[in-house]
């Protein structure tokens, strides 16, 4: 559909939020006790923040939960049975106030979960997701969306995108029928847009992702990987806070004879990730695993999935205990 532009006054946001919360799951950012920003289902509107730069964790969990049941089983030797998951029970979720980088990530995840054969667990959750995005009016030193082809007000992935105006009201751009349905249901809250200027964060471009992708084609054996991953401790923090990291594990968990097979987040940073039963490990040391992380996002995915595995949110760098700053590394890679 054609984009529709409306204005919503700051005092009307609460009405919109509570209307949505009354009948749906609304997932919105709040400040936790320790000042981190986290998303919560149906918080009180007073708790919801419009001033956060970035939540600690991404919001990929709405389409790719950290643990997802794939089936139930009974293990009874001869009479073992399996029971399917009823995907029709997946509820509609309204994602409120997520930034353009996070919203762009759903396309990236889709390029992983739905290339070749379609993963219905992911696809169904995405289908049931309505995104009311919030353009960024502030940024920090870790943000680099402009280096990966996005902007602080990219519209990709949003059904509605809110952009703050100088007076504190919001311009709502409506891109999809899903978004339109929300606006139509609260049409009294939306006005014709005025010409007031919107406030958009400035994010300086630090590298050219196409050049990085080009460089990586021949960089597999480059000494860069060892030299630049010495301080990497091999935890999964970067992968788990990342909005586009989609690697997962599949495990069974049984109580008595009943159990479930589930998938859970996994990380290429762990040595166990690729360890063969024989003890052989194709990615034996951390430098190889760090290389895999960068290669996957900036070389293999553009090549195989026609998407870039990074949206420039900077969470991996903010969350890294040893300051493995990805944008710094990509700048360096561009020039090797």
């Amino acid at each position, binding site marked *: 559909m054609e984009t529709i532009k409306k204005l919503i006054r700051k005092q009307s946001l609460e009405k919109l939020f509570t209307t949505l919360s009354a009948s749906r799951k609304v997932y919105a950012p709040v400040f936790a006790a320790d000042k981190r920003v986290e998303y919560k289902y149906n918080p009180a509107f007073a708790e919801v923040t419009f001033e956060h730069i970035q939540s600690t964790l991404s919001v990929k969990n709405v389409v790719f939960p950290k643990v997802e049941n794939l*089936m139930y089983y009974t293990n009874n030797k001869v*009479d073992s049975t399996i029971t399917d998951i009823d995907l029709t029970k997946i509820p509609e979720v309204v994602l409120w106030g997520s930034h353009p980088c996070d919203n762009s990530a759903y396309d990236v995840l889709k390029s992983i979960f739905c290339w070749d054969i379609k993963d*219905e667990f992911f696809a169904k959750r995405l289908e049931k997701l309505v995104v009311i995005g919030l353009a960024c009016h502030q940024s920090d030193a870790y943000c680099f969306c402009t280096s990966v082809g996005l902007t602080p007000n990219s519209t990709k992935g949003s059904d509605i995108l809110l952009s703050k105006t100088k007076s504190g009201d919001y311009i709502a751009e409506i891109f999809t029928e899903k978004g339109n349905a929300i606006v139509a249901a609260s049409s009294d809250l939306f006005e014709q847009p005025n010409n007031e200027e919107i406030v958009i964060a400035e994010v300086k471009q630090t590298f050219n992702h196409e050049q990085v992708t080009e460089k990586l084609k021949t960089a597999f054996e480059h000494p860069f990987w060892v030299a630049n991953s010495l301080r990497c401790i091999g935890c999964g923090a970067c992968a788990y806070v990342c909005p586009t990291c989609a690697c997962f594990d599949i495990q069974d968990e049984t109580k008595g004879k009943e159990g479930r*097979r589930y998938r859970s987040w996994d990380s290429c940073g762990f040595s166990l990730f690729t360890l063969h*039963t024989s003890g052989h490990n194709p990615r034996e040391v951390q430098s190889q695993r760090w290389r895999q992380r960068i290669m996957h996002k900036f070389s293999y995915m553009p090549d195989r999935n026609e998407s870039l595995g990074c949206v420039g949110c900077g969470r991996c760098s903010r969350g890294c205990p040893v300051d493995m700053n990805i944008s710094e590394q990509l700048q360096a890679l561009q020039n090797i």
Partner: protein
Amino acid sequence: MCENIYKPYLMVIDQIVEETADVKTFRLKFKNQEDADKFSFKAGQFGEYSIFGEGESTFCIASAPTRKEYIECTFRKAGRVTNALANAEVGDTVGFRGPYGNTFPIEQWEGKNLLYIAGGIALPPMRCVIWNTIDLREKYKDITIVYGARSVADLVYKHELKEWEERADIKLITTVDPGGQTPDWKGEIGFVPTVLEKAGLSSANTIAILCGPPVMIKFTMPILKNLGFEDKDIFTTLENRMKCGFGKCGRCNVGKLFVCKDGPVFTYEEMKVLPAEY
């Protein structure tokens, strides 16, 4: 309801063959006839086999697609799932997802000689294509199988080795590592590369299919090159740790290629440009 790509078929263990002290072959039949009717696969493909409660494990389908109504798998007791599988009995229900991965291009091999070279537990991933081409025997010229194991006790498919040996239209060379022979061992004694070298084989109009431990591959490749095999005529099947089997879980890739989607079958020509991540 939508299709759940992680949901396995329910299979019944129809037959168990104890190949060696820690290797077993299962014949699995579909519990539901509709599943059996719509199931088909090609030589070289693999699947995810599971004991509910223990998880899934990846191995190639070891039976030939020309044998309908069942699939077979051969595995060594090594990790959690294979240990649980090894404890299963005839009549037990197990899970199977598949087939996944690419295939040996056996149609393109028609009219050629086939040289199969396998070491140890690497014969099972080749057994499917071996039987497939034997079942279509008239389409191929000479079929030679070179198979080696550490000891006589470690040779798998002993009954089939005997059958192949007795057939006039198959040349079978079996070998065991020095010291691995028994008093009545009539095969060769020596490592696969050495035995291959003195077997007097030719690369003319021949496809080589090779699978074995890395050290065997390392020493066999120069011999194949000396015999004049071109890289595109040497095939192998790779393994990497896998979970999903269809290019999503992210762990089996070798460079940009997924072993589960682009493999497991690769030519040496393709392998040469891959980074050593397998």
